[in-house]
């Protein structure tokens, strides 16, 4: 008889002990190479320690060895589901450093493209979240079907389906194709119809509600203290969107609402994303209606030196606030390029949310955070 069995016999009952399981780095529901160290008591998660860095490529060091323009393709590989938004954030940061004026048409094109990418990114967020909950394949295929239309347009624009490298310092690479106007308007009409379908399929589905309501509640104070941004912060009831509150580019010209949640549970995070899609469609509709004629790129030297100094530029990405902190010493290359990625802070708060939940609910909460490892590890 082993020591443990003897002790059990003496106690007269089965003892339970803490059990550690490793979830990841290769796991279907960790959305990339994320490794969660879960401490379990039976089925209940006592504690969780995320381990990251499996996708670390040291983009910030690479940036120090490239010129400003050469770093643009690397921003695609940060949050690879919203490459256009990363491109935009970086282009705006460099333009702020150089004090470059961007043409009206380029600003409108940028807005349309960035919002289309936001729609595509949220569609993946919703689809994979439903997949994590066990809604096998159907919602995900529906979402990927819609995203495909956007990706087709991007493919035509710049030849890439995932990493676009489309934005340029001072504008965009190419003008919109001739049929883009009709194409995008048709898409808006189509997608509005489909959003109603998603509401029937998921949002008010009894099983979906049972799995997500009051699961993984993130309080507003906790969210702010952890520097959580984006849909996760808004789901906790804090009305904050850079596009509205500190408008960059031309976002102050458009009418749109900011969806907010009430309790900050997984369902709220899902609902905020779904509502944001329809708000983005509103912006796209207004922007495509007021698209001015002109040049899609303003004249910027192919080789330039950054004036000595530093800038910080942050933009509202689908996952939160993406920031670029550029320090220049007057050379061809940035002296330092710090990337503040939203998913990094949004993942840091995960242990707070899943303590005390079942393992299956932990997967639900992780899915609702909609993180991308590419920008966490950089």
């Amino acid at each position, binding site marked *: 008889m082993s020591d443990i069995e003897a002790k059990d016999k003496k106690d007269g009952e089965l003892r339970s002990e803490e059990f550690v399981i490793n979830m990841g780095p290769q796991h279907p529901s960790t959305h990339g190479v994320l490794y969660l160290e879960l401490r379990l008591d039976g089925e209940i998660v006592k504690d969780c320690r995320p381990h990251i860095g499996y996708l670390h490529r040291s983009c910030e060091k690479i940036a120090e060895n490239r010129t400003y323009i050469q770093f643009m393709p690397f921003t695609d590989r940060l949050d690879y589901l919203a490459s256009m938004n990363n491109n935009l954030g970086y282009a705006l940061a460099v333009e702020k450093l150089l004090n470059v004026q961007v043409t009206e048409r380029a600003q409108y094109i940028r807005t349309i493209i960035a919002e289309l990418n936001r729609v595509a990114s949220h569609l993946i967020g919703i689809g994979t979240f439903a997949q994590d909950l066990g809604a096998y394949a159907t919602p995900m295929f529906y979402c990927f079907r819609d995203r495909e239309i956007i990706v087709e347009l991007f493919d035509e624009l710049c030849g890439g389906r995932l990493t676009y490298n489309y934005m340029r310092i001072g504008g965009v690479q190419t003008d919109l194709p001739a049929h883009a106007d009709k194409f995008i308007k048709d898409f808006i009409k189509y997608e509005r119809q489909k959003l109603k379908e998603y509401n029937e399929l998921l949002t008010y589905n009894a099983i979906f509600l049972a799995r997500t309501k009051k699961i993984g509640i993130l309080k507003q104070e906790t969210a702010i*203290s952890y*520097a959580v941004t984006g849909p996760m912060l808004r789901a906790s009831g804090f009305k904050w969107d850079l596009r509205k509150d500190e408008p960059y580019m031309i976002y102050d010209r458009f009418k749109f609402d900011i969806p907010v949640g009430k309790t900050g549970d997984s369902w709220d995070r899902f609902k905020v994303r779904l509502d944001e899609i329809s708000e983005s469609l509103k912006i796209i509709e207004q922007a495509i209606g007021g698209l001015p004629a002109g040049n899609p790129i303003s004249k910027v030297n192919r080789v330039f030196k950054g004036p000595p100094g530093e800038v910080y530029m942050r933009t509202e990405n689908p996952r939160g606030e993406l920031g670029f902190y550029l320090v220049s010493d007057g050379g061809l290359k940035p002296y*330092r390029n710090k990337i503040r990625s939203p998913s990094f802070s949004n993942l840091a708060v995960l242990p707070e949310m899943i303590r005390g939940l079942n393992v299956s609910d932990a997967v639900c909460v992780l899915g609702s955070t909609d993180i991308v490892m590419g920008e966490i590890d950089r």
Partner: protein
Amino acid sequence: MDQTQITQTFNQQLPGAVVEEQSKFLVIKKESLLAAAKILKDSELAFQHLHSVTAVDRKDKIEVVYHIYTYKYRFMLTLKVYLPMTDLTIESLAHLWQSANWLERETYDLFGVKFLNHPDLRRILNPDVWTDYPLRKDFNRPDFYRLPQTEGLKAA
């Protein structure tokens, strides 16, 4: 709200803390960082959001850069602390803002700045057995990387 208001607050409550003032950032003394951070967070200024923590290697010194935001006045403050290369230690802010935990771990991992009283100061992006600090300017990029063998691998 602008930066001069914050400088005035510091000058009143922490005389001598502000070392340098530029148009885009404030530099404060290393010793008064924690006190200054407490003023920013708990006073009427309400800097609730520690947006990012990073560092810049200037070869003779390392600048630790904090971006702190106040939702109330909608102002982003860039706060800097200069650390000489001989003494890379600084007080951790993880007890004031929870976000500092991971952000400081990242700065420690990439620059080797030691944050005192940090709840869990481990490497975050690089492996635990890594010895260098990759974002330092004197970091030599090897042609080939090989990780030191960990205990587990040796046993296997």
